[in-house]
Every structure is written in C-alpha cells, then in structure tokens.
C-alpha cells in the first residue's frame, strides 16, 4: 500500500527516510501513534482469554531498562574499574 500506511517492519531499508518524512509528527499524530502501539500490544498480550506473566513482565522489564537509562549518570559514579 501507500508508504505512510505501512508498518515499520514492512518498510525496506532504502525507503526509510521517505517513510520518516511521511510520518505525522504533530502532537495528535504522535498521540495517535502511541495509541496504536499500545492497542496493538494490549490486544496481543493482555486482552486474551488465557494470558500469562508475559503481558506485564515485558512492561516491567521495559520500565526497568528505561529507569536504568535515566539514572545512568548517577550510577556511573559507582563503577569499579578506573579505566574503561
């Protein structure tokens, strides 16, 4: 289909800049993108009849990684080696 309506995984490497240019970066567009991403994740892993720990465990793992990234400047002070 048209470039702007394909998923990121279906876009070939050469078309990536064009796809990024066609993307909608206004606040509503960003919010819509976040909305779609959450809905697809929710429908795939949480909104099922017999789910497992996978649904929230992935969210928690992502939260752990994000918070580690945000606090990295502070954690850097507790490194063991002097030279890296």
């Amino acid at each position, binding site marked *: 289909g048209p470039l702007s309506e394909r998923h990121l995984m279906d876009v070939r490497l050469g078309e990536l800049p064009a796809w990024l240019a066609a993307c909608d970066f206004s606040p509503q567009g960003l919010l819509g993108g976040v909305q779609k991403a959450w809905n697809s994740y929710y429908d795939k892993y949480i909104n099922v009849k017999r789910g*497992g720990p996978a649904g929230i465990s992935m969210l928690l793992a992502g939260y752990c990684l994000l918070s580690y990234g945000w606090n990295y400047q502070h954690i850097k002070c507790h490194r*063991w080696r002097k030279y890296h």
Partner: protein
Amino acid sequence: VLHTTRPLHTTQQCLAPLPPLPEKGGEVRHGLIPEEFFQFLYPKTGVTGPYMLGTGLLLYFLSKEIYVINHETVAAACILTVIIYGVKKYGADVAAFADKLNEEKVAQALAVKNGAINDLETAIEQEKKEQWRVEGRSYLFDAKRNNIAMLLETNYRERLLTVYNEVKKRLDYQVAMQNLKRQKEHDHMIQWVEKSVVQSITPQQQKDSIAKCILDLKALSKSAQAA
C-alpha cells in the same frame, strides 16, 4: 485514560457480534522475549543465534561497565528469585481461579440469553395457540346466536302466556258477571214468588187450613190409637 480516546466503529460496517477474544496471547520465551525475535534471527543464525547474541551483549555490558554491579543488582536478583518462585508455584492455581471467574460471568450471560430465548419461544407458542383459537370464532358465534334465539323464544312465549292469562281473566269476569246476574234474578224471582204467595194466603184460608190440620191430626191419632 488512553482507552477513552480509542476510536470506536470508525468503519461503516461494524460486526454486530464481536469476534471472540483470542485464546492465548503472543508467544513469549522465558516470559520476556517475544517469539518473533527468535523467528527473525532463525534463518541467519539458527537456533542458538539469539542466545549467543544475548550472552555476548551481557558480557559486553558487564566488561565495559555499561551495567554497573552495585547493591541494586543483589536486590534485583533476590526479588527476581522470589517472583519466579511465586509464579512457578502458584501460577496454575491463580490461572484456574481467574478462569473460574470468567466462566461464571459467561455462564451468567448465557443463562440470561437462554432465559430470553425460552421466554420468546413460549411467547411464540402462545401466539400460535391464540391464532388457532381464532379459527373457532364461527363456533363461538353460532353458540351465541343460539343463545340469543333461545332468549327471544323464551321472551315470546312468556308474553304469549301473559296474553293468554289476561284474556282468560277478562272472559272469566264476563262469565262470572253473567252467572251472578242469573243468580240474582233467580233469587229475586224466588223471593218475589214467596212473598206473593205468602201475601195471597188470606186469614180465612189460614183458619180453614188450621182447622183441616186439626181434623187430620185427630184422624191420625185415632188411627194410631186403633193401631
């Protein structure tokens, strides 16, 4: 909050019965990494590819100290152990409990639906019975017509009887009048005759009859004495 902005029924055709929820979620290996990642790397690196990638990344982060080992690592390790132990031990029970709750909800909804269907079916049967009853209209009206005819006949006969009684009363009256008149004439005539007879008996005749009676009595007494 995010759910309120989700667009509903954006397309023209909306499927009236919602499609049922999928049975199982997307496949996830070790509870953390979706299966798609493994399938993505399988053609190029085979089965062990993602694991080698994981090990390499982990050693890289540790050696370059992008991931620093501090007190939080120990805490994270303890927490993860407890969580994994809890999930492995009680996961099945919690899943069964949740399934039971779901089952009850579904059974309730099904019961309501079945109840509604049964009510409607009984309503349909009653309606058909009413329609069958309508066919008996002609018999009902025949019976009613018969009733009315009988009422009319009864009324007519009652009135006939009344007429007969009234006429008989008048005729009886006439007959009684005639009888009474004749009776009165009879009595009057008898009285008049008696009066005239009594009047016609002169005193002379009375004396003569009394003398005759005495003579007769004497003759009788004589004959009786003789006998």
